[in-house]
């Protein structure tokens, strides 16, 4: 059996080992498949393990390396895809009984780009049902469990992606983020996750939850690994109407430039309401670290931040619009929780939807004004650590307040990364948000902080 150290290596480190032939892609892939076979029965991160495909990809990478091809840092790197990304010839369920037999004819653009970069497809990672509904007991697909505490949620909806990464079962993963579905699991699982700017990464071939809020993006154990994945993912896609033609910069090279002289704005209003004291303490310590590293830290105001809750009105209305036919014709194929959430979207009036979009425009303007004064915003990713399944299964448990949704409203790039642990050993996360298409600065701040701390080096006992 390969060592734990190998499974928790970074993409850069393991890539270097692959390129100097210290380990082969096939050996690396076999080791991961064995680890998945050993650990996943208790974590449920994978819906489908594509062992044959993984080994075929790995053999292809081995041949490429044999030809001296070292052009891609992802060549031979085993990763997983959230199961709302279409994969040609491979079951894509969306975590839903509705799609229990769907085998797409095409890959999603993001999958195509990562495969073209030489990544090895380990399999499909469980998602909350249609990226919105937690799987309750008895659901066709059991929910992923948090590797730090199996009785707790790994977050969602990219739950399998977060669990697989924290458990060392993949080096990277695709997530999607409509209200925090990349950053929430990153927060609860102690990993890094980036929601890029709206339009930066293609949504083509990804199941829709809410057209104007959906984002695709990378998840990994380090900020640098997110940068490697983003480099392969980012760029214009003519098949996605929201795709941007903004040029793609080098995301990796500037990571080492530090934060000296950068201005970090802390938004106190809204993001600290109901915050857990341990989360607040870890966040303040992270700010102190950024100051020590040379950044200036100041409080900033976003006048309309309290209107962020309107993002749920947009999400509900758009989700109902997308799923209405199935909700009316085959409601029994939706999980109960998801069905009631989506039906709630039918109760939003046209006027309310329009006003929510107008509030969104105002929030976008106000955040833009704040980002004229500072380079990035910093907030806690989640005001509380991961809840237990028992908590969320309580019939009275509502939809939690979101520290991530405001940045889906505004489309700004937002990174979640570890900044501490609770006394009981649960990860705590900081969220760093930047200007439109300035993922470079967001990643640079995150990487600099990460290099000065060791939170990302802690791993759950499994």
């Amino acid at each position, binding site marked *: 059996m390969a060592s734990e150290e190998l499974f928790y290596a970074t993409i850069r480190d393991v890539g270097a080992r692959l390129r100097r032939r210290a380990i082969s892609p096939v050996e690396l892939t076999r080791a991961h498949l064995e680890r998945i076979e050993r650990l996943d029965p208790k974590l449920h991160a994978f819906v489908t393990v594509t062992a044959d495909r993984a080994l075929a990809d790995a053999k292809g990478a081995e041949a490429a390396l044999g030809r001296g091809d070292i052009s891609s840092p992802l060549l031979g790197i085993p990763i997983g895809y959230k199961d709302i990304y279409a994969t040609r010839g491979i079951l894509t369920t969306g975590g839903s009984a509705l799609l229990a037999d769907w085998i797409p004819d095409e890959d999603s653009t993001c999958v195509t780009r990562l495969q073209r970069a030489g990544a090895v497809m380990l399999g499909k990672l469980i998602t909350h049902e249609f990226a919105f509904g937690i799987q309750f007991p008895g659901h066709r697909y059991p929910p992923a469990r948090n590797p730090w505490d199996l009785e707790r949620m790994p977050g969602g909806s990219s739950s399998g992606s977060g669990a697989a990464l924290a458990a060392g079962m993949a080096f990277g993963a695709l997530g999607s983020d409509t209200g925090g579905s990349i950053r929430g699991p990153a927060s609860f699982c102690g990993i890094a996750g980036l929601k890029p700017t709206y339009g930066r990464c293609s949504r083509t071939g990804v199941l829709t939850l809410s057209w104007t809020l959906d984002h695709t993006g990378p998840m990994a154990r380090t900020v640098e690994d997110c940068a490697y994945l983003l480099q392969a993912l980012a760029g214009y896609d003519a098949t996605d109407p929201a795709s941007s033609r903004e040029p793609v910069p080098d995301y990796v090279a500037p990571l080492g430039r530090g934060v000296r002289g950068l201005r970090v704005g802390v938004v106190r209003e809204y993001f600290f309401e109901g915050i857990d004291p341990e989360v607040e303490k870890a966040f303040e310590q992270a700010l102190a670290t950024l100051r020590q590293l040379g950044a200036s830290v100041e409080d900033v105001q976003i006048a309309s931040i309290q209107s962020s809750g309107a993002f749920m009105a947009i999400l509900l209305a758009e989700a109902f619009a997308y799923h209405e036919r199935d909700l009316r014709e085959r409601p029994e194929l939706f999980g109960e929780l998801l069905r*009631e959430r989506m039906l709630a979207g039918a*109760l939003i009036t046209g006027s309310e939807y329009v006003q929510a979009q107008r509030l969104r425009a105002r929030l976008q303007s106000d955040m833009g004004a704040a980002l004229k004064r500072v380079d990035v915003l910093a907030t806690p990713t989640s005001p509380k650590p991961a809840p237990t399944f028992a908590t969320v299964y309580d019939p009275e448990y509502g939809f939690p307040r979101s520290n991530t949704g405001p940045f889906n409203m505004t489309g700004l790039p937002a990174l979640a990364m570890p900044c501490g642990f609770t006394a009981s050993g649960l990860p705590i996360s900081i969220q760093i948000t930047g200007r439109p298409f300035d993922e470079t600065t967001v990643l640079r701040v995150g990487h600099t902080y990460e290099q000065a701390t060791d939170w990302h080096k802690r791993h759950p006992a499994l």
Partner: protein
Amino acid sequence: MTLEELRNRMKAARVEIAENRLEVVRRLLTDALRPIQAMDSRAHRPLEPAVTFDAVRSRGDRGQ
């Protein structure tokens, strides 16, 4: 939002939600609509409902 208003909206939208889940849905919608209902649209300068994310145009508007 009251439960009565919720039921009226369900009737108008032709959807059914289990009686024992109405309170949870009421709370979800109340939270989502609170900022909208607090907004006096006449009090704001003209705001378009269309949201754009165009990078070039955004630079002037959003601080780059």
